[in-house]
């Protein structure tokens, strides 16, 4: 069969549709639909995946029994462990450390550095990674990090913005820590030599983001998370820490009294395991995008499979706000090779508009993320004004050429070098042509409940970053999660170190919590069909899977 004819990266029929966008562009340059009223927002939200019928259920076991979670998460909470008690010999300890950190994104890496600064030797700290150190959501943050450091701003306004954004469900004392520490974190980044965008006077360039009332978004071109993480990873590598790659944690270890004292790590290449005994354990495994909640594509990295939440829950940790999921309104919907990938909100802050197949701007570009995402879904699936891709996905245009019309030629290449490059590779020129977008699963709003020190309710277990819950309440604002990682990476690192210094030598290691959890599942009548954590998603072709034989 002949391949479809493509012109400038788009198939012919999409090219035709783009003409309609071009026709209305000049008119739209000075017009955008007004922001929705409260009532309109509420109506639109009815088809947001969080509120649309189905998709959720009550969790039937554990500390949050009776609370609501997405089915995909509840499935994993109600799953049996992937190791058996008799498979592991806990009497032989491979690593005996003060602090074990699970997951090396911004949160885990910050935690390691600050624990070390507290006087715990880098040889007494172990960082375990499922993939390579840095193969993480943190690497991908494009838009920026919030910090209230300009004279017309204040940590209090930052606090208020985040609280309203989170529908007043944030944990106040935790959010206070976030807003207050933010400028200190910016200073820390500069001390490590991070290069953050400056203006001609040497001041930070600070932009707005959805839900901020004062411009406080700090970016490093469109590679913000990458710059932040690579400077701290470089510092980490200079300090001779113990670290492991391709060694995911597959279960926590507890003592008789329920205290967490380390973890079982599993070598995903050879299949053997290591026993880590630790005085304090920090969970920093990031989010759950790869669970593809409600069948959505995701912006997240390959290892975002919710492992940390599952393991902590079994050890008795309370979760909060896991009933809401953040969908980014503008994930890529075309071409197939990049479906789901993030097209940052900054595109809309700088003038790009969502446009339907008739060339009409149908929504205010900067509604809160949930409202904007729902409006896009509505345009595609209720108003039937989406564009259908060759693989059957629907999306609407994001009219990026408007950015250059408004801010001048060259703006896109300067501000969005990463994205510009990505689309060039697909033979698409985002300066001249609109992009096709559809909401993509982006962020785990809730998680393991934390306090301002990064403590969970379980003795010996700390958390930081996307795996944790509380700071963002039921909805996170852009730029507050990279910040969250560094603030609570730091706090959990410092407090775990303090805790470890005072702690007695750990007692006998057990998997009692795991055994108990399994028997609770059994009592609840749950069949041993599902196992968790899943560690990695499976995208193998259906045809091959159908013919696979398990020989070794």
């Amino acid at each position, binding site marked *: *069969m002949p391949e*479809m004819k493509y012109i400038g990266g788009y198939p012919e029929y999409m090219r035709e549709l783009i003409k309609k966008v071009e026709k209305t562009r000049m008119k739209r340059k000075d017009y955008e639909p007004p922001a929705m009223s409260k009532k309109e927002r509420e109506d639109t939200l009815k088809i947001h995946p969080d509120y*649309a*019928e189905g998709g959720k259920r009550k969790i039937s076991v554990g500390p949050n029994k009776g609370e609501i979670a997405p089915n995909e998460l509840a499935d994993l909470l109600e799953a049996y462990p992937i190791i058996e008690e008799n498979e592991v010999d806990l009497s032989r300890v491979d690593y005996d450390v003060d602090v074990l950190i699970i997951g090396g994104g911004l949160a885990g890496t910050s935690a390691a550095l600050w624990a070390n600064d507290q006087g715990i030797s880098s040889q007494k700290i172990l960082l375990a990674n499922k*993939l390579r150190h*840095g*193969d*993480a959501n943190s*690497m*991908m943050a494009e838009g920026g990090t919030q910090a209230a450091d300009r004279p*017309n701003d*204040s*940590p*209090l306004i930052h606090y*208020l913005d985040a609280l*309203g954004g989170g529908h007043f469900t944030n944990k106040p*004392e935790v959010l206070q820590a976030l807003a207050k520490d933010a*400028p200190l974190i910016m*200073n820390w980044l*500069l*001390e490590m*030599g991070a*290069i953050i965008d400056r203006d001609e006077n*040497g*001041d930070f360039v600070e932009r*707005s983001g959805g839900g901020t009332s*004062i*411009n406080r978004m700090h970016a*490093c*071109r469109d590679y913000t*998370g*990458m710059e932040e993480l690579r*400077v701290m990873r*470089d510092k980490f*590598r200079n300090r001779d820490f113990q670290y492991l790659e*391709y060694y995911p944690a597959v279960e926590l270890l507890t003592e008789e009294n329920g205290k967490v004292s380390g973890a079982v790590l599993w070598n995903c*290449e050879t299949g053997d395991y290591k026993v880590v005994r630790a005085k304090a354990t920090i969970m920093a495994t990031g989010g759950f995008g790869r669970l593809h909640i409600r*069948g*959505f*594509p995701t912006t997240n*990295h*390959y290892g975002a499979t919710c492992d940390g939440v599952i393991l902590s829950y079994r050890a008795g940790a309370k979760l909060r706000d896991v009933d809401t999921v953040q969908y980014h309104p503008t994930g890529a919907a075309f071409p197939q*090779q990049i479906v*789901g990938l993030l097209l940052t909100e900054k595109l809309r*802050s700088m003038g790009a508009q969502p446009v339907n197949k008739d060339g009409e701007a149908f929504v205010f570009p900067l509604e809160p993320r949930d409202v904007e995402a729902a409006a896009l879904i509505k345009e595609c*699936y209720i108003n039937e004004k989406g564009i259908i891709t060759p*693989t*059957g*996905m629907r999306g609407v245009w994001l009219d990026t050429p408007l950015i250059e019309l408004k801010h001048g030629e060259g703006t896109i290449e300067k501000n969005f*070098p*990463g994205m510009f*490059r*990505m689309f060039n590779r697909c033979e698409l020129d985002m300066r001249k042509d609109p992009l096709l977008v559809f909401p993509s699963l982006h962020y785990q709003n809730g998680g393991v409940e934390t306090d301002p020190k990064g403590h969970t309710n379980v003795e010996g277990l700390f958390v930081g970053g996307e795996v944790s819950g509380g700071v963002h309440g039921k909805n996170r604002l852009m730029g507050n999660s990279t910040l969250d990682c560094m603030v609570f990476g730091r706090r959990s690192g410092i407090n775990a170190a303090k805790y470890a210094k005072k702690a007695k030598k750990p007692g006998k290691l057990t998997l009692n919590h795991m055994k108990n959890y399994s028997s609770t599942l059994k009592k609840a009548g749950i069949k041993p069909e599902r196992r968790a954590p899943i560690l*990695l998603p*499976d995208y*193998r*072709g*259906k*045809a*091959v899977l159908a013919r696979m034989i398990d020989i070794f």
Partner: protein
Amino acid sequence: MKEKKSIMDRIAESNRSVTSGIDEKDIKNWVNIYIMGKAYKVPAGVTIMQAMEYSGYRFVRSAGCRAGFCGACATVYRKAGDYKLQSAMACQTRVEDGMFLVQIPFAPAEKASYDIHKEKYDTNVFYKYYPSLAKCVSCNTCTKSCPQDLEVMDYIQAAIRGDFETVAEESFDCIQCGLCAIRCPAEIVQYHVAQLGRRMYGLYGCETPGHLTQRVKEIQEGKFDKDFENILKKNKKELEKMYAEREREKD
């Protein structure tokens, strides 16, 4: 108006190839490729990474962000009838008919250990930690191998001159995949040199904004503590009112 299938079901269905693996019956166009020497027929239009998955590979290594940021998926390939070895990121590059593919799981390049706070801001810092820099023969192989299209050789030359700003500017978009170092005949580890250069430039070449220093001082002096105490005492209604009355800065 009741639809047969809910909107959410329809969305899930149209995304299936991305969320749970490609089904043969959905494919219209095919290409033939070779993965580590074996021939496979795979869907046209997908990335090298997706093509390998379609063929039955489940990645443990060599897949990270899946979006061109982390540098985990460096790939070397050759096209049928072409002698040239080319390189790319598997998550960012579409398969083409006749590609011979191999993935590079790991670049065992050495990273020097240093403390930027103890170094002087001049070119010697590069030579001290990466002496192979002196061996650069300006062959430009690094630049040609860069999947980010960076001017790698230019920033290496800038490092030799001690021009930190150019090193930082030119190398900023580096995803540290290691392809440059693997191909360099002089065994320079370009991406580590760049990391050192950027951190030095960030620390010594850029000033800390005065407004940040001022704010840090204020926080340390407890300037906002009282106000936070008050705001933490407010009930939801009062907070909602404060939120609604915030003043907005113009962009």
